[in-house]
């Protein structure tokens, strides 16, 4: 019954996904860890854990704490590094044929571009997603992703060294996400993905210390969904390039909400920890939702929210 619903979405740079449901970076390992629980090929794609030039050990524990309808984490981008990723992980993902988006992290612009350059000749990279949460040394240590000027320049530099579709992942910790999205578009990004986690802190009142070793962390989960929806919609009204939305998606209803706000595709994040099979179930439920609502093509939903939109 839902078999007739068209789920394919074009997300810029010539990339078409078989459906709009991807999994978010940092919540899906390198994808392969989820094979016991779902068929990777049923997903729109996977976004792998942020890859840095060299392996990273991550932060000391505690790294994670549950919050009301959410989770706060400061993992510290623990990852195997680009060389091992290319040797061990990418070939396995390529073999499976799943659309693989590689999230790229660096401690400075040079680091980040180094990883983009290493990925550039590789087949099996559906898109590169730039994680600009690193401190921007040139502009006084502010996160690179908070400065429109820095975003535009690094996107342009990355654009010059790769022909792979380029996504810029936007932080919500800014005064205007429409401005940072416009900067990514001006720099030549094929799509923007949003939102990354919100900065948060939990304090243990008995010990009078932050619960996380690092102090603050990134808030994710359903608690941030309304923030994400509002930001996706702001960005939708500002830019022409496709938007990949995320923030607290746990079911197909949430996916529809993001599409209505203007996202062309979405990423399921924290919910993967709760149920490793959830992303595939959401794909099936989304098709069923569309069928039940007389939607023949999921693209009909994109940006279709009505009423006041301030």
């Amino acid at each position, binding site marked *: 019954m839902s078999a007739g619903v068209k789920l394919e979405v074009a997300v810029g740079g010539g990339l078409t996904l078989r459906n709009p449901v991807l999994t978010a970076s940092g919540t*899906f390992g390198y994808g392969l860890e989820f094979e016991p629980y779902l068929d990777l090929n049923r997903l729109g794609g996977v976004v792998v854990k942020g890859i840095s030039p060299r392996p990273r050990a991550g932060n000391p*524990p*505690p*790294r994670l704490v549950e919050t009301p309808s959410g*989770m706060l*984490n400061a*993992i510290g981008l623990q990852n195997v590094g680009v060389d091992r990723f290319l040797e061990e992980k990418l070939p396995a993902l390529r073999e499976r044929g799943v659309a693989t988006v590689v999230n790229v992290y660096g401690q400075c612009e040079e680091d980040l571009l180094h990883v983009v350059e290493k990925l550039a000749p590789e087949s099996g990279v559906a898109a590169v997603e730039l994680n600009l949460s690193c401190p921007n040394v040139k502009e006084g240590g502010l996160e690179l992703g908070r400065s429109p000027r820095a975003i535009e320049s690094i996107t342009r530099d990355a654009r010059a060294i790769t022909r792979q579709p380029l996504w810029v992942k936007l932080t919500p910790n800014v005064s205007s996400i429409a401005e940072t999205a416009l900067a990514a578009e001006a720099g030549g990004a094929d799509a923007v993905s949003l939102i990354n986690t919100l900065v948060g802190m939990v304090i243990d009142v008995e010990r009078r210390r932050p619960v996380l070793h690092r102090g603050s962390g990134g808030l994710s989960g*359903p608690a941030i969904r309304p923030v994400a929806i509002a930001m996706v919609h702001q960005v939708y009204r500002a830019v022409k390039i496709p938007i990949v939305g995320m923030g607290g998606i746990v079911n197909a209803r949430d996916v529809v909400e993001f599409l209505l706000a203007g996202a062309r595709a979405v990423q399921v994040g924290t*919910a993967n*920890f709760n149920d490793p099979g959830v992303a595939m179930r959401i794909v099936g439920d989304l098709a069923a939702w569309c069928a039940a609502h007389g939607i023949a093509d999921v693209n009909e939903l994109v940006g279709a929210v009505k009423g006041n939109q301030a």
Partner: protein
Amino acid sequence: MPYNLTAAVERQEDLGAGYHLLTLAAPEIAREIRAGQFVMIGLTDIDQMLIRRPFSVALVSPGPDGGEPASIGLLYKVIGRGTTLFSRLQPGDRLALLGPLGRGFWLPDPALEAGGGDETELLLVAGGIGNAIFPLLLQELGPRAARTTLFFGGRGRADLTLLDWFEAHAGRVVTATEDGSHGQRGFVTAPLAAHLDADPGRRRLVMACGPHAMLRAVAELCLARGVPCQVAMEETMACGFGVCLGCVVEKREPESDFDRFVRVCTEGPVFDAREIVL
């Protein structure tokens, strides 16, 4: 391979002092789980519980027709929001369940075990709710369970849950309570140290589960005496299968700067005490 399923509650037993034994119908997991491994459990409505909780499986029991294990029993203490919600579950309610997960306890290489009196002495050390990990181990040990000693500590008698069960299934149970309401007054490490020192030449294996400070003290006692020691760790984790990277502990001897941490959920939860910083 772990199973990702929902399971019905069979029984919820209130053992007093905040301790509960929750029995779930989960034949696949009951058949495959090994002592020291764990399951992640959560409410089926993710809006009521975003992060599942790791639980040791305390014991397995056969179905009504006997034979193969069909149910798992989870022993827990009501502490926070999650365990409070679990304590309200009634027979027939369903839970989300993922498992078996992680690396459990391992026994000495049988090749090292000469015949008769030269068997490695197994010493189990439990602190408070850390006892939840040991019934399954004693079940697995079969006749050998009768040749184990359990050192069991708690704040008071009320924390020594399932004490009768342990007295019936372990060879010997030595208790210690901080308030002196049962056994020796003080920490469980005192009778453990006395036991290790009474016959220092004996080949032994210590298996411990309990509060972090107890594990550290037990590990120190054992390492100082060259006694092999396995510790079952508990850390906050979001996934239980190796991807959230939230539950790491520090390695004692990292091979490089990039290799400082191991995941409790995947490389553990049971570690050789020499592997990690406690």
